[in-house]
Every structure is written in C-alpha cells, then in structure tokens.
C-alpha cells in the first residue's frame, strides 16, 4: 500500500490545477450568474485531451487511468463545479458504457469523437415518475424493421441539448413470471442529437451548478438505427447500474473538489479578516473548524481515490463508489455550510464564491443516486 502519488500523477494534477486556475476560475462566477453552458472552456478542454482521459489511445483518448480522470474532475470542481460535472457526465455516463458494452463498430463511430472531445455525451435514465425507483421508467422502444422507435421522455439530463450523443434506457419488452407478475425488460440505446422525433423540452432552473445544461428529452416516434442498441437486448438495467457505479466516483470527485475549494477560500479569508484586533484565524474557534474540515476532506479524498483504484483493478466496485460518493457529498455540504459561516455576512453575498460552492454542494447528495441510495447499496452489501 502506498499513499503517495507517483510522479506522473503528480504532474497530471499540476496540469489540471494550472488549467483550472488559469482558464476556469475567472469564468466561474459569470457561468453561475448567467447560467450559460461553458462552451469555450469545453473547447479548450477538448484541445488538451480532458474529455477522454481514461479512454485508450486507439479510441481517441489519452490512455490514462481512472485516478487521473478523478483528479481532473476534482481540480476543476475546486474552482467551478459546473465544469467538473460537464466532464464527469460526458466521460463516466456516456463514454464508459459504450467502451464497456459497445461493439467495435459502435466504439469506432461513437467513442472516438467523444474521447477527442469533438462530440459531447449525456446519459438519460431518470423520468418524472422514476428517479430512485429507476425501474418505474415508462419510455418504450419497439423494433420496426431496421429501426428502433422510441416513445417517452426523460428529465434532469445533464449536458442535455448541448450533447451530441445520448445513452437512453427504455423498455423493450414486458415478460410475465410463473406467478403472473409483470417484469419490464430495459435496453440501452445510443441516440444521436438530430434523430427524427427527438427533441428537447424544459431547461431546468437550478439552485446550483447553474452553468450545467439540464434538460428534458422528448421522444415522439423517434427512429434510430437497429445497430444503436447498446449491449444485449434486455440488459439495459444492469448496464445503467454499472454506468452509475463509475459515475458516482466522478460525482464523489466533484464533491471532494467543492469541499477543497471552499476550505482553500476559508484559509485565505480567515488569515486576512480581522476582528477584535487580530485575524479570525487566530481565534481557536476558527482553528478547530479548519482542522475538522481538513480532516474530513482528507478522509473523503482517500475514499474517492480508493474507489478510482478499484475501478482500475476490479470488475465490481459498486460499494467503493457508493461509500466515496456518500461521504464526499456529505463532506462537501458540511464544509461549504461551515465556510459560509466563517465568512460571516460576506459569505452570504454572491460576490464571494463560497455561497455558490454551498449551492453547488447540495446536488452532489442527490444526483447519480441520492445519499439514501448509496446507503441502500452499502447496507445491501453488508447484509447480503
């Protein structure tokens, strides 16, 4: 066991840190205020290979490992959680399932442009009536000759409308077991933006990560080629669950980054801010708060990195991912709330970044499986 980063990972971190500080940080506040998708930043990230970090080189990626990718999301999220989730949803939720379950043709056609960043990806599972209970989804797909015909809608889709490629989960059959209970069989599909019958509905107005493009997807007799079925027919649900295991490591990294970014601000501010004739960092109340936050963040970081290493070396990493996401998200929420408090009245003003970080932190406890879902996964494994 070795807890020190090797030189190449250290250098990769310094690259992500420099990029985040120079290119992303100056735009973070504006991205939040205007709720505009950071398209220019994505273009720059495309140029430097950030959109396909863990993807093998022969598929247009950088040939690095999950840990490198996680550090990228972490460093971006330290300064802008919106930019962090753009990379995470694209890499974990769209590229990863095609890499894992796609045919060679699908990888050539879809992974290559996604990994180079020429195209952007998204993942669509959630529906208005089916969030945590993903089995409740209603969107259907029927084979008609050489085409699948999709009908239904998806909601809260990250990178919605701006993405070019969507992984969509839909019911392809309903079977009855011996006791007469009906069971929905889901399949996964690759859907291109511009497919006939595929349109976008409401853009969500969110509390945080406001530059991230969150849309409703609508399928009205949407026709896609037969060969865009991803993985075997009827295996859509396990594909979605496997995809989310990886995605949770990405969100855990985002939450970790938010917490680290907030602590960095708190350290700088409390050293500078004077009350009662000395800096508030000289008050023991502040010192103990900083110590608690730093300790919690390091615990979260170890869980997140362990999950990333598990993804690199193990076939199944659901529990590692669930623990990392649960703890990192709750750390981000607790830390950002405390940092706003340390900033006092200024922390509540939008000019200071910490209130944005607090708003951004909350979503990490909800999306890609709520904290309650993570607890279900963890306890399920414990009590098996």
């Amino acid at each position, binding site marked *: 066991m070795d807890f020190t980063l090797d030189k190449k990972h250290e250098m*990769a971190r310094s690259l992500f840190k420099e990029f985040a500080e120079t290119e992303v940080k100056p735009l973070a506040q504006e991205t939040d205020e205007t709720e505009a998708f950071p398209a220019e930043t994505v273009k720059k990230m495309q140029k430097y290979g*950030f959109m396909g970090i863990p993807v093998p080189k022969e598929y247009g990626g*950088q040939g690095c490992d999950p840990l490198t990718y996680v550090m990228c999301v972490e460093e971006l999220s330290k300064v802008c959680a919106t930019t962090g989730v753009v990379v995470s949803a694209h890499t974990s939720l769209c590229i990863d399932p095609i890499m894992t379950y796609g045919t060679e043709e699908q990888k050539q056609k879809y992974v290559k442009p996604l990994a180079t960043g020429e195209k952007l990806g998204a993942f669509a599972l959630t529906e208005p009536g089916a969030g945590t209970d993903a089995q409740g989804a209603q969107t259907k797909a029927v084979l008609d000759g050489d085409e699948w015909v999709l009908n239904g809608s998806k909601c809260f889709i990250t990178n919605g409308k701006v993405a070019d490629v969507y992984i969509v989960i839909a019911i392809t059959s309903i079977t009855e077991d011996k006791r007469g209970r009906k069971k929905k069989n889901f399949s996964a599909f690759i859907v291109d933006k511009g497919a006939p019958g595929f349109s976008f509905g409401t853009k969500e107005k969110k509390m945080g990560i406001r530059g991230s493009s969150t849309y409703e997807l609508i399928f009205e007799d949407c026709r896609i080629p037969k060969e865009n079925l991803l993985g075997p027919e009827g295996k859509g649900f396990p594909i979605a669950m496997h995809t989310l295991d990886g995605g949770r490591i990405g969100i855990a990294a985002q939450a970790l980054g938010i917490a680290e970014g907030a602590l960095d601000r708190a350290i700088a501010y409390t050293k500078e801010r004077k009350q009662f004739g000395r800096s508030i960092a000289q008050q023991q109340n502040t010192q103990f708060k900083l110590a608690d936050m730093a300790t919690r963040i390091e615990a979260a970081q170890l869980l997140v990195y362990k999950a990333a290493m598990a993804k690199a070396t193990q076939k199944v990493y659901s529990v590692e991912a669930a623990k990392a996401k649960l703890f990192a998200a709750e750390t981000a929420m607790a830390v950002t709330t405390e940092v706003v408090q340390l900033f006092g009245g200024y922390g509540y003003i939008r000019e200071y970044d910490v209130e944005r970080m607090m708003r951004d932190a909350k979503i990490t406890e909800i999306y890609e499986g709520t904290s309650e879902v993570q607890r279900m996964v963890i306890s399920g494994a414990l009590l098996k």
Partner: protein
Amino acid sequence: MNIVVCIKQVPDTKGGVKFNPDGTLDRAAMLAIMNPDDKAGLEAALRIKDETGAKVTVLTMGLPKADAVLREALAMGADEAVLVTDRVLGGADTWATSTTIAGALRNLDYDLIITGRQAIDGDTAQVGPQIAEHLGLPVISYAADIKVEGDSVVVKRQYEDRYHELKVKMPCLVTALSELNEPRYMTPGGIFDAFDKEVTVWGRADLKDVDDSDLGLKGSPTKIAKASDKVAKGAGEKVNLDPAESVAYLIGKFKEKHII
C-alpha cells in the same frame, strides 16, 4: 530540421524568495518550475514542429531531479530529452555552464538552438550568447517572434524602444523572451507517455571538446562571495504639510532616492 531547446529548472520566484539562515537560496522551500523564458522558447520550437515536422530535443544541465522539467517538455510535445548531470559540474558560473552545454550540444545534430533570454534565479542572460560563442554560431537574443524561412530563421529582436527584424542562416542560436507566446499546456496522455520515455543522461565523460579547467566550481572565473536578502523597507514616515510644501517635500525625497 533539428531544433535543440536548452531549458533550466528554476525555483518559482512568483510567491517570493526564501533564504536559508546562511543567506543562500532555500530551494527546497520553493516550487521548482521550467524557467518561463525557456518555456516560451520550447513553445516556439513546438510551433515550428507543428508546421514543418521538425524534431525537437530538449537539453538541461542540473541535478538528477531536473529530470522533471524534461518530462514536462516531453509532455508538451518535445521528441527527445537529454539530462547533463555530474557532481563535477556543480557550482558553475555562466562560463562553466555554457562550456558544459556547448560540450553536450557538440554530440547532437542541430539547425537551430533556442535558449531563454535569462533564468529567473541567476538573471544574468549570459548563457545563451556564450553557448553560441563556444560553438561559433551567430546569435540573436531577445526574440519576440521566430519564423523559419527555408534555411534561415527570421527573428523579431526586441530593443527598449523598437524591434529589429533579422534574417540569419542556420545553424544559429536564438534566445527567447517569455513574451514570445503563450506556451501550451501538457496533455494527460502526453504526461503518461513522457514517463514511459527514456531520458538520455550524460556526465562529464560525454562532453565533447571541453577542458576540465573550464567546468564546475573550479572552472568558474567568478565566485559568489555573499548572498543576502533584500533589506526590508523601514517604517513609513508621516508628515503634515500644506499642499505646496508637500510637493516640494516629495520632489526632494524622490531626488534623494534617485527616483527622479
């Protein structure tokens, strides 16, 4: 075409300079980075590579840990890297440094050698021109733009109040300004590849046509006698004067401090 870029690992002086109690630079307390002028020189070389397919080799002289700047250069897109390191080369002034680097360069094929204008630690701006002198090459310093035209380079040389445009036949040496360009970032895959690559390591024995008496501390005509921190500014002085007196007072102070 072959381009060799000479780069140096320097302490990052951006966050202030730290000293040991004995007055020498506390390098361990400061982050080590690629010298900014050298990085611009490397970027210029990589742009020529993008256009013409030139081969870019980076060369540094330093401690074994200077390997880090070579990996960084490889991750940005350089093709080959050479580290010149040897105990006997330590403590070199600009003469001994340029002798060493010229000795290493004699082993390489080059059409164009690029160095930075100056390193932010020593701040002499002497090594580049001295290398050119050792190798008998023309030198253009303070390059604000570098272009390749056939077998020549066209360089915009910065002066205090103007630019000169010079065209020089290769082989030649150019020293680059950090204002020359915005160096590219590394790529994550480039970093992984850089650590898989072999860095060529040369010692004293690999230097061509150099004399021991010109190397290291012993071969340095200059010696640093003393180094010290900047003298801290004293406390300010507050005076109460009317406007006319204030002007006279300020001008008097400025003259006294040779500001005007």
